[in-house]
């Protein structure tokens, strides 16, 4: 299919045989699954052997997919999906999402997705320059950190023209929380996708494209862009995101993270103020492709131990786990650690949670110098934190234990020390799917709901009920596709009260569909309601129609979003997840927060179940979360229904 918007080709790479194939994109498939997340899900669903439980098996499927609108003029359309059939840390299908320039470059080279299977006999990297696609020897790159690998690649390809995904030692060593680093500083974090690259002996993918993406109606695309540009620029938050990224959220979030470690109550959050960052470190704004909001910043450290070091990134989601959660309040040290995790190819949330948990165990006397080989994990010791992060990525010392994830580490420690397992696991913040959650969300019901349910960690790119919570704004509800009468009702109801659980299932239903659409088209959340911006589903439909020449309404897109969520649920059921996995660990319920601004707030298990079952109902699932044949048929997913029926996972 050679139409506008899409590139028209899916690239299939079998690392075992070295075979590289091009498969034409089918029009029906493209319209149903859009691109990005939707493509990755369906391509993986079709290729995945759900009986295989080893994520490091050659059979595991890896998919890299740009959004349907990536590479075009659509505002903020530069996001890339990186997905795996079986995530080592989740034990199910997982997709993660990164910004940067890779998604657009892949589109310009004319690929809508890369599906990677097999296992290379020795380390290789994939080089794509338009229709030249080749696997090259990467033995000389193996063992190298991301930046060094980048420097070495520079000798082989002119890197200023290439976009690149590179794994560091963490991915090579199949570490929990590893990811490929995109353009040095961007992370499709979550799910340990880097470990799957590592197991496949795939060190990197570099891409350059000069074919471009044809746009069906350029004048209309210009107009659609202009409309979003003007609306978003008029928002108060616009300037703030441009100047401060998400770093201004660090101080704000302080109250939420305070439960991770007891001492955090008196943590000097003012050391991590956005004013300090801007004054002492920021050296320039940076944007992903096609983004006029430029929330990223390059920074430089000008004094102290790390003087001269520079880098980018350091979202609130990086600074909080690497800093306050481990008791570290020196900004320069946290930025240095940010560079370190990017360079090792380790996601900052997982790494920070692992260190914080170990420090917590240490503090409780559950972990001692005898277990850590002498490394003293005192809370707030940045050097110890750095050592432990290195040990994790390189699987040395106690790091080798934590490299399997905090739950596995708790099990190992319990066995070695003869401790009660529950004492160790009770200090891990996670949901039942055993994904670390870097904050205590008990006070914020919708957020808590999402964190418990979702396949990804604390990730506003996958779900975000907060776009409904806290926004008493009819317009914004419309933006995520809430039908008019419902939106009117919401605008003056308790649904926007984050402290109340009622109707959060509705908020989640609409926001999930909306986010699936965005992730499939490659559109960044910071353009839409999450960041209180004004790019709504209608604007998105307008961009989509102008670029592809296929006229769609926001309702069509909303339905596509539902289809993508149906497929995701089907895959998780096939991987063995059940209703019980849609909860937090038991200890999380009916136990109030004991300190801080939200003292007394708690999550009621009964309320939780009500909303969970409501959400299932909205999706057309039974009360155990199983889809019905009728609903799947309506969504055009008969093949999915057939696969579920064969293993009796379809609702009766």
């Amino acid at each position, binding site marked *: 299919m050679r139409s506008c918007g899409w590139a028209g080709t899916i690239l299939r790479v079998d690392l075992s045989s070295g075979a590289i194939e091009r498969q034409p994109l089918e029009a029906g498939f493209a319209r149903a699954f859009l691109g990005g997340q939707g493509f990755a899900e369906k391509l993986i669903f079709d290729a995945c052997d759900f009986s295989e439980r080893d994520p490091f098996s050659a059979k595991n499927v890896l998919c890299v997919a740009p959004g349907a609108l990536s*590479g*075009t*003029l659509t505002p903020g359309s530069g996001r890339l999906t990186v997905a795996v059939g079986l995530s080592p840390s989740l034990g199910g299908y997982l997709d993660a999402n990164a910004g940067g*320039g890779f998604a*657009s470059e892949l589109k*310009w080279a004319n690929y809508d997705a890369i599906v990677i299977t097999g296992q290379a006999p020795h380390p290789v990297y994939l080089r794509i320059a338009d229709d030249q696609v080749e696997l090259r020897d990467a033995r000389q790159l193996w063992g190298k950190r991301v*930046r060094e690998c*980048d420097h070495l690649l520079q000798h082989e390809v002119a890197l*200023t023209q290439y976009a690149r995904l590179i794994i560091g030692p963490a991915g090579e060593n199949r570490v929990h929380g590893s990811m490929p680093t995109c*353009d*040095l*500083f961007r992370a499709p974090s979550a799910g340990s996708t880097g470990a799957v690259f590592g197991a496949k002996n795939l060190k990197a993918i570099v891409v350059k*494209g*000069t*074919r*471009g*993406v*044809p*746009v069906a109606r*350029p004048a209309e*695309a*210009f107009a659609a*862009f202009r409309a979003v*540009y003007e609306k978003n*620029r008029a928002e108060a938050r616009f300037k703030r995101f441009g100047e401060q990224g998400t770093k201004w959220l660090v101080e704000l979030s302080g109250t939420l993270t305070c439960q991770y470690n007891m001492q955090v109550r008196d943590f000097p959050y003012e050391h991590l103020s956005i004013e300090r960052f801007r004054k002492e470190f920021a*050296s*320039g*704004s*940076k*944007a*992903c*492709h*096609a*983004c*006029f*909001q*430029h929330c990223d910043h*390059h920074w430089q450290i000008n004094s102290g131990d790390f003087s001269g070091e*520079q880098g*980018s990134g350091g979202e609130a989601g990086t600074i909080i786990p690497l800093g306050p959660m481990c008791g570290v309040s020196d900004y320069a040290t946290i930025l240095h650690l940010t560079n370190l995790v990017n360079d090792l190819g380790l996601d900052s949330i997982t790494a920070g949670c692992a260190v914080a948990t170990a420090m917590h165990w240490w503090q409780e006397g559950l972990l001692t110098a005898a277990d850590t080989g002498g490394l003293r994990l005192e809370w707030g010791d940045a050097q110890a934190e750095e050592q432990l992060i290195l040990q994790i990525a390189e699987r040395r010392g106690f790091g080798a234990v934590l490299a399997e994830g905090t739950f596995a580490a708790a099990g190992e420690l319990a066995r070695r020390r003869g401790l009660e397992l529950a004492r160790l696991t009770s200090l891990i913040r996670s949901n039942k799917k055993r994904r670390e959650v870097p904050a205590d969300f008990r006070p914020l019901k919708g957020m808590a709901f999402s964190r418990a349910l979702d396949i990804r960690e604390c990730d506003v790119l996958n779900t975000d009920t907060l776009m409904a919570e806290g926004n008493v704004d009819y317009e914004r509800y419309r933006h995520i596709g809430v039908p008019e009468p419902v939106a009117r009702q919401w605008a003056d109801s308790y649904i926007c009260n984050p402290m109340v659980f009622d109707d959060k299932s509705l908020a989640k239903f609409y926001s999930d569909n909306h986010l699936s659409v965005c992730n499939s088209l490659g559109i960044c959340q910071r353009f839409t309601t999450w960041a209180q911006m004004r790019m709504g589903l209608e604007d998105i439909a307008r961009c989509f129609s102008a670029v592809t020449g296929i006229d769609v309404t926001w309702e069509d897109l909303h339905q596509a979003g539902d289809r993508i969520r149906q497929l995701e649920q089907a895959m998780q059921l096939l991987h063995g997840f059940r209703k019980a996995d849609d909860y937090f660990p038991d200890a999380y319920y009916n136990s109030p927060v004991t300190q801080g601004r939200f003292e007394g707030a708690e999550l009621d298990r009964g309320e939780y179940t009500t909303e969970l079952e409501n959400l299932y109902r909205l999706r057309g699932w039974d009360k155990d979360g199983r889809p019905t044949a009728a609903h799947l048929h309506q969504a055009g997913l008969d093949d999915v229904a057939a696969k579920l029926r064969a293993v009796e996972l379809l609702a009766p």
Partner: protein
Amino acid sequence: MKILAVDHTRCTGCRLCEIACSLHHDGVANPAAARLAIVRWEEEGLHVPAVCQQCDVAMCELVCQPHAIRRNPATAALVVNYELCIGCRMCVIGCPYGAMSVHPLGRPVLKCNLCDGEPRCVQFCETGALQYLEPQAVSFAKRSATARKLIGGES
């Protein structure tokens, strides 16, 4: 006569200018077909727009044997006449700034023509890294910043 002014310190590397350019001229979103290029150095966080300066003494014009590159008196832009262009690409080699390039798909060479006085790249540059200004205005911002520094204020 306005000129296309570049302030690379403001460039975020979003590359919207490239897409706006190629979409306007060729109906395709393709930086390789754009008449300007953004060079990104990820590690240093540097993004530098490489843009035609429409030089007074223009090498591209001088090296062009069939005289296919001529100045448009309305905009002062040097414009390629594709009827005359023989595709020898000497202009691409001759330009000291790398501001010209070879088209990946269609026309032999690519050169900025200032969109006949309405440069699209400028319209899509949020930060003002690219601006279309009267010549006096180009140095004004820098002058006033320097002057402020001289009297001891913040620049």
